[in-house]
């Protein structure tokens, strides 16, 4: 496809005719309209985030009176106090909260533990497998890799129920390892992603290391991993975010505070607020606090994440 395209350019390139002034002006008007559309899309994308902040900084009573005021109304940090559990039960109920104590720090800790277990495990074990699939020579390499790739096709819904039964049978229900285990050992995508990069490490460098007496294991740790720091970091950040945001599986596995992660806690927090007068300020404060770590991570690694997106589509 691309070869076809390049030949066409070569044949068409020479006959450069200056474009009329009229058409340039029309195009620049088009550009202005295009920019307006683009900026409108960006505003729509970001507006909900602004509304989270605006609501979280307001007081519930003032929101009732001024639901459409564009800035925070009845400015108050009480909703954050409610989320962090720094407010007494009575004060929380008075502000429209549930009055239940919220173990925010516990949920945060749980989310961090699960996301770290999944990320470190999945990236490391997938890197090992990717090394075997890219740099080691063994007879069934091709067919076994094809089977792993086929695993990409299995929709997660299908493995969730049987996996729940399995986790229950091995007694890991309502534990953090129980949440982490199914995704901790590998993901077909991670193996595929890293294999692509490991394949690009030059044979000559590897040969030289072998001649110097390095073993294949040392080559993996001393050569392949250091040379692939960039893709490994990208994969790790993406895995961390995915694991942090996961909801369905932790919802199935955890029942008590001891294993509740932030996403599940957030949904529970919502279901506990009174239906008659929901604690919107508190809910938005909790939402902001739950989303903030990933938004910060994104700002730090934006370039890597954004540039890696194309990879999953093009393959």
């Amino acid at each position, binding site marked *: 496809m691309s070869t076809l395209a390049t030949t066409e350019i070569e044949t068409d390139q020479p006959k450069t005719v200056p474009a009329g002034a009229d058409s340039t002006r029309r195009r620049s008007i088009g550009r202005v309209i295009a920019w307006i559309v683009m900026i409108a899309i960006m505003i729509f994308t970001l507006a909900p985030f602004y509304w989270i902040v605006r609501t979280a900084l307001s007081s519930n009573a003032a929101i009732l009176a001024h639901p*459409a005021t564009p800035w925070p109304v009845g400015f108050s940090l009480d909703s954050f106090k409610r989320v962090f559990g720094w407010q007494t039960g009575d004060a929380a109920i008075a502000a429209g909260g549930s009055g239940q104590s919220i173990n925010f720090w516990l949920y945060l800790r749980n989310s961090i533990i699960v996301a770290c277990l999944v990320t470190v495990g999945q990236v490391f074990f997938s890197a090992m497998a990717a090394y075997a699939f890219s740099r080691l020579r063994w007879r069934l390499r091709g067919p076994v890799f094809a089977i*792993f790739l086929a*695993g990409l096709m299995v929709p997660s*819904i299908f493995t969730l129920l049987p996996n729940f039964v399995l986790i229950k049978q091995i007694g890991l229900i309502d534990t953090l390892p129980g949440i982490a285990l199914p995704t901790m050992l590998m993901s077909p995508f991670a193996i595929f992603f890293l294999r692509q990069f490991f394949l690009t490490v030059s044979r000559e460098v590897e040969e030289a290391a072998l001649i110097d007496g390095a073993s294949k294991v040392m080559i993996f740790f001393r050569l392949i991993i250091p040379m692939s720091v960039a893709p490994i970091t990208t994969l790790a950040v993406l895995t961390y975010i995915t694991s942090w945001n996961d*909801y*369905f599986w932790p919802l199935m596995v955890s029942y008590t505070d001891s294993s509740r992660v932030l996403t599940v806690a957030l949904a529970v927090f919502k279901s506990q607020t009174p239906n008659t007068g929901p604690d919107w300020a508190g809910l938005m404060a909790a939402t902001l606090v739950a989303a903030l770590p990933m938004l910060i991570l994104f700002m730090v690694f934006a370039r890597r994440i954004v540039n890696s997106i194309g990879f999953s589509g*093009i393959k």
Partner: protein
Amino acid sequence: MASELATGAVPTARSSTGTAPRRRRPDDTKLALIFIAPAAIGFIVFLIWPLIRGIYLSFTKFNLLTPAEFNGLDNYRRMLLDPVFWNALKVTVEYVVINIGVQTILALVIAVLMQRLTRSLVARGIILTPYLVSNVVAALVMLWILDTGLGITNQLLGFIGIDPIGFFTDSKWVIPTIAMVNVWRYVGYTALLIFAGLQTIPPGLYEAARVDGASELSMFFRITMPLLRPILALVLIISIIGSFQVFDTVSVTTQGGPVNASRVLQYYIYDMAFGRFQFGYASTLAVALLVVLMVITFIQYRMTRAGQTDLD
């Protein structure tokens, strides 16, 4: 992979004829087995085994407390006569059509605009932001923004004289609303996939077309769309498969209501398993979803291939 094997063989062959000490062709089978062991265990225990077990459970009566009891095709018979299942399938398809339709068109517009206007990382970052927050966060924000009484959307509609809309409480609105919530969350991601595809189209093609006096619109239909078709098809497969598994948004916002208006398949499966502890029947429903996804993948795969041969 074949080409990689071929290039890999060259240095080995060269070194065997030269002064290099290693002559034998390396065989790393033992080491390779050790290196793939953890991933293989994960793959078999948490992917292959559940796949087999899920199919087995779909033929059983199983409530988690007592051992699964084989009951043949009973669950499948029940499913075919279950009006809630058919409604769930209908609602899910409705959701997928709205979600994918709006999302793909909007993503295409964003991707083309970005390609023609800016390569800015900031712009791409902004578009991607909703993708970085969880479905739960997205659902909660939208629940607030689209609230019937106090939500800003209905307040603004009120200013121009439109009666409040029960986005999550009116059975007519609930599926389109959930679809739009997920469009907000995923459209940037889809746009960046398409944008990556656009980058593979040589810019010279557009230069040449412009010299020939082609308009933006005709360039879009004559150059962009035909060359993008294989990638667009792939993006569609990914997003349709994801879209069929909608759960988080429904679980946080409506829990399947009002009545069954938003009881999508995956929520029905969850409800059957964890609300009513009918794991056998829930597994049968999951098999049905799997079959639907396989059929769609197959059809799309065929269509993609047809599209590619069309191009050459």
